[in-house]
């Protein structure tokens, strides 16, 4: 079975889906691994690092022609998908609900698609869970980026030249990214507040030293640890509860998402206009439409004295770690799917079932 590792094409994404170490492990398991030229360059992995462990360096074209499984982190574009051959498998974060047209093409080509973002959040799938592994880094990096952008420092300091009051950090959404953001901001000495629609996150936030801003969520639903879309009424209550903190905050990090939907708008332009001069907002939900009304993906907007940074890029900027984790997740996923180098197609298995979006041209999920 030949695995083709593609270089990421998305602007600014420095990751690679398979690192030399994992390539070696795959080869050890009997797979053949071909890697696109310079695929690892931005994550500090050279072509030679791959060839040393026994992988072949190939052109992109070659990979599309010869691979049984094509692996990448980010979604494919239409042109690329048109190159697929019958029986070929693609494995990436396809976000199939947001991109049904892509599934159509794959189906048309008679190919197969596994979507990494669809790995279920169950205990035994934790080591394949790319959302967790990448969001975790995103949470860390959002704080570092925020601290770098701010014109203030995080910790309280009582010095001979006066006292610097600690930065106030406000976090929306206490999922994986939110929790790591809390931990990181707290470590640096900030006063951290956080809120989430799921009240069970209160204890978790507090266990990391944040103050939880409780918003009455009666009437709201959640499912399997995921939030569902919030009602307008909830949004109003949330604003009332959080505004006081928002208007004092030096750094705001938003991570609120609802799987398969546009991210909820939690900070309106009007709210931004009341924020402190010099405050920074890092919107990690920007790619899903953003939690802040004025955020734009991959841009820094300066408005009302506030810097609004729209990004999901945080993990990309810690590309070495992000690639290592992603590759390990992929490896675990491949090991789970296969037996003695061959796919098991075990549709009884929840992980296979939920990630297998298109099977030999048949669209199974939409």
């Amino acid at each position, binding site marked *: 079975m030949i695995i083709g590792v593609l270089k990421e094409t998305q602007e600014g994404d420095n990751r690679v889906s398979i690192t030399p170490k994992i390539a070696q492990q795959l080869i050890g398991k009997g797979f053949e691994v071909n890697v696109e030229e310079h695929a690892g360059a931005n994550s500090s992995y050279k072509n030679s690092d791959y060839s040393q462990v026994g992988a072949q360096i190939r052109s992109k074209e070659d990979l599309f022609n010869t691979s049984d499984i094509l692996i990448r982190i980010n979604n494919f574009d239409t042109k690329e998908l048109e190159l697929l051959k019958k029986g070929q498998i693609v494995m990436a974060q396809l976000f199939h609900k947001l991109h049904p047209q892509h599934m159509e093409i794959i189906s048309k080509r008679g190919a197969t698609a596994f979507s990494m973002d669809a790995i279920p959040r*169950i*205990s*035994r799938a*934790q*080591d394949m869970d790319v959302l967790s592994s990448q969001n*975790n880094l995103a949470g860390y990096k959002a704080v570092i980026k925020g601290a770098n952008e701010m014109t203030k420092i995080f910790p309280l300091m009582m010095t001979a030249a006066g006292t610097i009051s600690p930065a106030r950090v406000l976090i929306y959404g206490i999922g994986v990214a939110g929790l*790591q953001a809390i*931990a990181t901001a707290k470590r640096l000495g900030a006063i951290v507040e956080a809120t989430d629609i799921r009240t069970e996150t209160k204890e978790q936030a507090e*266990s990391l030293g944040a103050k939880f801003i409780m918003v009455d969520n009666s009437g709201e639903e959640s499912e399997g640890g995921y939030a569902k879309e919030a009602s307008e009424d909830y949004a109003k209550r949330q604003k009332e509860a959080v505004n006081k903190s928002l208007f004092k905050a030096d750094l705001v990090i938003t991570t609120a998402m609802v799987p398969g939907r546009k991210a909820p708008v939690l900070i309106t332009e009007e709210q931004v206009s009341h924020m402190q001069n010099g405050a920074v907002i890092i919107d990690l939900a920007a790619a899903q439409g953003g939690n802040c009304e004025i955020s734009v993906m991959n841009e820094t907007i300066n408005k009302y004295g506030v810097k609004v940074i729209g990004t999901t890029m945080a993990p990309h900027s810690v590309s070495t770690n992000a690639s290592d984790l992603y590759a390990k997740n992929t490896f675990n996923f491949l090991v789970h799917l296969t037996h003695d180098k061959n796919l098991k197609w075990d549709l009884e298995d929840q992980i296979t079932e939920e990630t297998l979006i298109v099977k030999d041209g048949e669209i199974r999920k939409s």
Partner: protein
Amino acid sequence: MNLTLDIIYLIATITFIYGLKYLGHPETAKKGNLIAAFGMGIAIVGTLFLHDLVVPTFTYVLIIAAIAVGTVLGWIIALKVQMTKMPELVSLFNGFGGASATIIGLVEFNKSIGDPTQTTTTMAAIIIGSITFSGSVVAWGKLNGTMKSLIRLPKYNLINNVVILGLIVFAAYFVWSSSSSQPLLYLLLFVALVYGVLFVIPIGGADMPVVISLLNSLTGIAAAITGILYSNMVMIVGGILVGSAGLILTFAMCKAMNRSLFSVIFGAFGSTQAVAGSQSVKGDIKHATVSDVAILMNYSQRVIFVPGYGLAVAQAQHAIHELEQLLESKGVQVKYAIHPVAGRMPGHMNVLLAESNVEYNKLAEMDDVNPEFKNTDVVFVVGANDVVNPAAHNDPSSPIYGMPILEAADAKQIIVNKRSMNPGYAGIENELFYNPKNSMLFGDAKTVIQSLISELKGM
């Protein structure tokens, strides 16, 4: 009496005091036992030889034969018995002591007739001695499994109280009437024996140690009373020491079990409930106290901590680091076994423990540490649950089936600290808690660890 003997008794008494005192600390306990045994030895030898009586050789031979037989028997039994059977053996031995006191009372009864003080004393020796005897034997049988654990008579409280009152009246009659009737005496003996049985039979198996301690205290009192018969100081003081120390110990044991003495003896219903509370389909769970765990850790060579989400909730990171350092300073090797998904976010335990400056090289990854558990004396699971749940291996229907876990069950002894029997994130029961090698140490992690620290510092 002989002056040398007086001095020997005095010395024996002092060894008893020191013996008890030293038995109260782990470091000195062994020494204390030996000291007391030495005192007992000289008291026995002194009694045998330092007296002003004319004793025929036959009697001497008999006595020495009796001592020899008893010594050899006692020694062998004590050495042969399994560790786990020791409590019932103690109970049995205690019963023998009571029987001995009873016999002395019976023999002395005739001599005492007419002297109310002496009669009172013999009566007391007989009654207390035989209650201890039969009670201890029942306790032994229960612990042994020979007897069904819980036998409940209807209105047993009432019956018991009537019997004991009857006994007292009966004894008073002897004192008052100066009767020397042997049949009546044996009736008294019989009733006392019956009371001993009645007293212990309704008490639950889990409460047996408390009862044994109480009976033990009674034997001490019986010895002291017999001592009054002979104006023998070592018996009096020794007996009273055992009596008072035994009583205090009984209360301490009740406290450690979170029960009152009253509820142990009378509230046998309460007792069943309490036992039921910690029972389950999976079997019994064992409780440990802070001092148990402290001593266990203190005398270990290798300890592994398994932290989980509860450690974060309790904010016990500083406390556990202090515990680790304290143990290390006592020569115990300590490691933290970090499960990849312990806590609620990736790296949760790392963030937590870094805060209290736990050295990075003390943190072991799951795959590295799993083979080490079997060489570990104590694994201390604090606020973790799912990450040590064997259901991940055994139970395909469990939501965590297939997840790798920390193999805490391989260790020689497991201690789990959490606040209750509530499940963790996955919402499922944990069989590990019912593992025979496991004891639960309930309480908030921070409080518990801080108590462990103070306990360990006192050692």
